[in-house]
């Protein structure tokens, strides 16, 4: 209980830019005590007065300037007509976070595969950059239904040693053949549960470690605060019968091998 309390606080939106099918918000907060990590997210109040659940967004980047504050980059789906507008530059944005465990980085330079889908691609790209910083070779697998839903490919190609684009249905095949080719020590997934499951299973098949997002940050029907149980995932029997994990509070990053994906349907 010595961890600092998580409180909602006010940030200032300094940019709201289009980024393919998404929008990138830059938000300035008082300087963070510990730097943010890829795999963390923020929680922000509902967009409209008739909505009761908060919104969750992946953190896609962070820059802390002493004396000025921390700028968080948030890449979020362009809200559909009904769900309320995003804040404009100059607006205040209330948010809690960055929340949660991020992805663990290998202590030795190894080969890594990062798989992403949707707006989470921005967090995936950030993870690639971090892996390269610690000397890893990184291959990015970006999944999307439409070309413009791959996040910022130009930057992604600079952050990774190889980039493979695929439709979500082709993720398993792409990951399997990539794995056979580059023999990664670790596979990462950031995106929906279906992708996390695929990555965990491909990793298990090759004996590699996997770290995956255990909750589809950005999806509807989540509280993000660890209170509602909508994100609960069953663990393998070995963890004790009937054990579950609550990824938004205990993750969002989980070891892929711990989850009983079969039972998670």
């Amino acid at each position, binding site marked *: *209980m010595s*961890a600092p*309390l*998580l*409180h*909602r606080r006010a940030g200032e939106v300094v940019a709201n830019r289009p980024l393919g099918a998404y929008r990138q918000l830059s938000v300035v907060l008082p300087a963070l005590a510990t730097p943010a990590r890829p795999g963390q997210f923020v929680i922000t*109040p*509902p967009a409209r*007065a*008739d*909505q*009761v*659940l*908060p919104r969750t967004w992946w953190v896609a980047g962070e820059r802390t300037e002493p004396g000025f504050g921390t700028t968080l980059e948030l890449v979020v789906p362009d809200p559909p007509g009904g769900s309320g507008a995003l804040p404009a530059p100059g607006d205040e944005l209330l948010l809690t976070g960055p929340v949660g465990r991020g992805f663990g980085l290998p202590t030795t330079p190894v080969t890594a595969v990062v798989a992403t889908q949707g707006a989470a691609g921005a967090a995936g790209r950030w993870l690639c950059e971090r892996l390269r910083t610690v000397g890893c070779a990184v291959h990015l697998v970006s999944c999307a239904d439409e070309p413009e839903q791959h996040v910022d490919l130009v930057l992604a190609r600079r952050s990774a040693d190889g980039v493979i684009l695929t439709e979500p249905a082709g993720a398993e095949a792409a990951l399997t053949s990539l794995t056979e080719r580059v023999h990664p020590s670790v596979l990462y997934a950031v995106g929906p549960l279906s992708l996390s499951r695929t990555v965990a299973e491909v990793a298990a098949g090759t004996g590699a470690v996997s770290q995956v997002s255990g909750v589809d940050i950005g999806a*509807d*029907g*989540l*509280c993000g*605060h*660890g*209170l*509602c*149980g*909508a*994100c*609960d*995932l*069953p663990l393998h029997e070995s963890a004790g*019968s*009937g054990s*579950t994990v*609550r990824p938004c*509070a205990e993750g969002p990053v989980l070891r892929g091998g711990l989850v*009983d994906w079969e*039972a*998670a*349907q």
Partner: protein
Amino acid sequence: MSAWLPRVTAAAGCGGSGRELARFGDLAALDAVLIGPIGPPGADDAGGAGRARARLAASPSGLVHTPAPALPVEHVVEDLLPWFRARGLPVVCAVRGGTAGAVADVLQELRRSLDFTTVAAVEVDLTTDREETRAAGVLGPTDRVGPWSADPQACLKLLASAREQLPRDLLLTAKLAGECPDPLATSRAAVGGGARALVLSGSVPAVGPPRQHLVGPAIGPVTLGLVTRIRAAIAAGRVPDVPLVAVGGVHDIRTARQARATGAAGVQLGTALLADPQVLWDVHQALTTVSPPPPVSDTTD
């Protein structure tokens, strides 16, 4: 009405295991921490494939939810109660079961815990489906026969059996909601069985398939209606005089005060915490600092 009752807690299914809340504020500042629903092992098994997770769907100013998966009682006994006791935090255990036996089993397990002293109250869920064991081969081993709260006689027996498991002075409460066809009869039965406070929720059955409920700010007026009705019944002597706890649509200081003004001694926060857990401490603070109205005889200038 002088019994101890927490002024505000999380609602069952909306406060996690209690520990998640600790990330957002000092639990010691609260009157008590509600944990649950607590169920017997495997209570929520859907065909043995693990516990069903809660599903939430947005609706205007509300949520439609399936019940939260129950915390297995052994997890509560082994992990949670020791944690709370070590910190001196009083706990309200919300308990759910389909039969009086299942509920009694959970209570027995809790009672056996070395950390039971930290349990300050038990809330029995009457909104959940009751199960009946049928003669073999007729309808399968158990059969859902509608919510407990639809059968006052069954509620009376359930509460009486729960009462037996618990120390005499431990607060026992019963929770009913919009699925209850006759709240007066059910309230009377619950108190008759041994409940010493009633938790009244405006949550309404909604959408299909079964076991979904509409909650959130949208249903606030239903909660106030239920509290008003039971207060009136108490005033008329048709329900024994016990304190009421309002839950459903209490989502900020204003609505908490409104619930108190309507006759609720305590409130519980559900959906409001999902949006911002901090509200729990805000409401607690607001209900604590209310100065009682000056006594009528106080006419000094």
